[in-house]
């Protein structure tokens, strides 16, 4: 298996479609016979990130590089950015409005969960410009 690169647009205006990219990645990894534990980590971390792009940033793009050793996921949006990443990484810290909570999200658990399920995580963010998440999960 050489490196396989997948790219997705994540639309920001359709909550019902959030997670399509993560779902597709999960199915591709299964087809490749990837390690199930790694698939689960990729699926959960990417899904949390994808939901965040939709509910906090008006959508974005996802690029996923799969090779036999690791899966690298880059999620980039041009949303409002995160003013205080340290705070955002705390469990329970959320700026999600009530309508997001009514959809079943907004408990402030996503970023800590991404941290938990990835082997490497970097967050580049600038207020007013956007956010990029670089995640790596080892096979």
């Amino acid at each position, binding site marked *: 298996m050489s490196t396989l690169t997948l790219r997705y647009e994540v639309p920001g205006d359709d909550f*019902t479609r959030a997670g399509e990219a*993560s*779902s597709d990645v*999960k199915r591709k990894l299964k087809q490749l016979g990837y390690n199930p534990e790694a698939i689960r980590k990729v699926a959960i971390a990417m*899904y949390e990130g994808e939901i965040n792009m939709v509910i906090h940033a008006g959508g974005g793009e996802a690029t996923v590089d799969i090779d036999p050793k690791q899966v690298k996921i880059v999620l980039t949006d041009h949303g409002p950015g995160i003013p205080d990443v340290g705070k955002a990484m705390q*469990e329970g810290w959320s700026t999600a409005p009530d309508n997001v909570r009514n959809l*079943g999200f907004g408990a402030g658990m996503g970023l800590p*969960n991404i941290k938990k399920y990835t082997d490497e995580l970097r967050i580049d963010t600038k207020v007013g410009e956007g956010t990029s998440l670089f995640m790596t999960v080892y096979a």
Partner: protein
Amino acid sequence: MTVNEVVRILNATVLVEGDMETEIKTACGSDMMSDVLAFVKDQALLLTGLCNPQVIRTAEMMDMRCVVFVRGKDIDESIKNLARTRDIIVLKTGYRMFTACGLLFAGGLRGECEEK
């Protein structure tokens, strides 16, 4: 217990069929998908009062086998279709969350709290 037994205990309607003999050992109940993603480990069954496609996606990401919608709400066709393509069984019960969970617990299903 099997999914068939879950159906019987909850007097549930089967909205999306699957392998009804699938063995279920643990379950969780939540309306917050954030919490399911963060706290659930190996639960095969999700009970929820939330009715949107992200319920099915959350179950998919967590490798769950069966979703039970409580309080007998009408479930959108798009939600059922998504579950069908992801091989997730979907049930609907008239019981509310507390009662549905209690009935399954009394029937032998457990949550994850046992470990603590």
